[in-house]
């Protein structure tokens, strides 16, 4: 049996885009935004490809959850080298619990040895879906991975924590979430892009998965955050220290 690596990816606004609240106050205005694979998920795709390069008989399957618009980003993952893609049609936005419901069902059906996904999506910044999934499957988890050394039956993972690098070993099947410094994702090559056009994107509906969306997070408002700082420019260090002496309690 092949070693299947499942890589869930989320379509998010490019991190360089300016985020503005839409007039209805319940969404962001996406009209001027371009979309990418969540950067942490792109790192997960890259790591899956590297695992495939160093062990036998690995299949890398990327998953996208969302509407039909979610195609370019999946093609990008395929162009990087993923073997195939699955797109689950679902309403957006979807909260982490419902994302994990879909992924758990896919995991039961596809029996991956490893689910590799970003530690957080840079749109809602929840950082929950991977842990939810591991909990529901009863699998071990290694979150915020900055290094993965896989062996036959498991992996040793270095994790970025608030207090330094923690190392754990886990048995497969497992969920690993990826941090920034795990790798630098490759760019798709031209042959990769051409090959990706022929690779399959399989559409699956929630009905087929027998999943009903059960909302856990209801968004009731969005507010733009703006800075109210004066941004006073000072000429020299003496002026700066004078301002700090007058306006802070630190001296």
């Amino acid at each position, binding site marked *: 049996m092949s070693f299947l690596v499942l890589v869930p990816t989320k379509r998010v606004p490019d991190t360089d885009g300016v985020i503005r609240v839409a007039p209805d106050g319940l969404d962001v205005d996406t009209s001027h935004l371009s979309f990418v694979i969540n950067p942490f998920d792109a790192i997960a795709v890259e790591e899956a490809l590297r695992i495939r390069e160093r062990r036998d008989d690995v299949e890398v399957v990327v998953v996208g959850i969302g509407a039909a618009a979610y195609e370019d980003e999946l093609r990008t993952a395929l162009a990087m080298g993923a073997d195939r893609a699955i797109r689950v049609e679902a309403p957006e936005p979807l909260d982490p619990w419902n994302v994990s419901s879909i992924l758990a069902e896919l995991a039961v059906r596809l029996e991956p040895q490893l689910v590799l996904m970003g530690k957080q999506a840079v749109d809602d910044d929840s950082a929950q879906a991977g842990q939810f999934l591991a909990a529901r499957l009863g699998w071990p988890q290694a979150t915020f991975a900055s290094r993965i050394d896989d062996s036959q039956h498991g992996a040793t993972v270095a994790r970025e*924590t608030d207090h330094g690098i923690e190392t754990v070993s886990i048995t497969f099947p497992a969920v690993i979430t990826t941090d920034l410094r795990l790798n630098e994702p490759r760019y798709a090559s031209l042959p990769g892009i051409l090959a990706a056009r022929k690779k399959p994107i399989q559409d699956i509906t929630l009905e087929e998965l027998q999943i009903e969306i059960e909302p856990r997070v209801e968004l009731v408002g969005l507010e733009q955050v703006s800075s109210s700082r004066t941004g006073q420019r000072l000429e020299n260090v003496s002026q700066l220290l004078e301002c700090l002496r007058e306006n802070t309690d630190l001296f």
Partner: protein
Amino acid sequence: MHVLVLAEHDGTRLRAGTAAALGFGLELAGHDGGTVTCLVLGEHVDGVAQAAAAYGDVLLGDHTVLADPLAERWAEVTAGVVRSEAADILLGASSTFARDVLGRAGGLLGGAMASDVTGFRRDEGRWVWQRPMYAGAVTASVVLCGSPLVVTVRPTAAQAPPHRPQPGSITPVEIDAEGLPGLTTYLGLDSRPSHRPDVTEARVVVSGGRGVKTTDDFERLVGGLADVFDGATGSSRALVDAGLTPNDLQVGQTGKVVAPELYIAVGISGAVQHLAGMKNSRTIVAINSDPHAPIFEVADYGIVGDLYDIVPEMIQQLDAD
């Protein structure tokens, strides 16, 4: 209404974020005349339990299978206590620890979870939680559906409550060691010893960015300026990626969120991802050679110039005082 706060500690000391979470918990409970209990897990952690008892009642799960903070075990035990205590809200301070352990506990408890909460209000009997999204560009108000609720709160959004005149009770929790999973093995923490406080706990934070060229320069300039204030050092992502600074110094959307009394950004341009981690600091100073650097837009005071000239002068003038 019962709030359970999961304690984060280093084996001997309660982390400052947990005290802030207890303060936030008391604010929540105060709305409904409820209670707040702190859950302390680990091995040989009597000292931590006593520190937590200064704020109120404590449940203590002390067992060798909990010696290391492994999410699969700690989440299982925590979720069990939430159920047996019929807690309405499971709370923790936002941190990598909480994301790992409470995230998994949230998965065991039905997924009604909000991360990095910065505030709340009551609206017709519902809790409305405020939390940042899109690297802090917007603040979302969310209502969680289901029960219990799992919430992580930014320590910067709450304050440690005063110590109680009489410490709270410490009640042992029975640990079913046989029933806990053993699929993860803890191999260690590589923590660089530092004489400086943690970046999330200091009154003054001095952070360095791309303008700082070497590790020695970082230590001499950023570290040197921090030391004048007995402060902490922080780092932009660029320096961590370049291997100049350790990951636990990173301030930003994917690193730590800080709100000290004074934040000095040295050679940091101010990408939104970095601003997400520091823009709520009380006073912000920016030093950058690029007059158009976005960091100046969130700063109270800025000096345009070469950090290699300005920072030594600051250290010198402050030392002369």
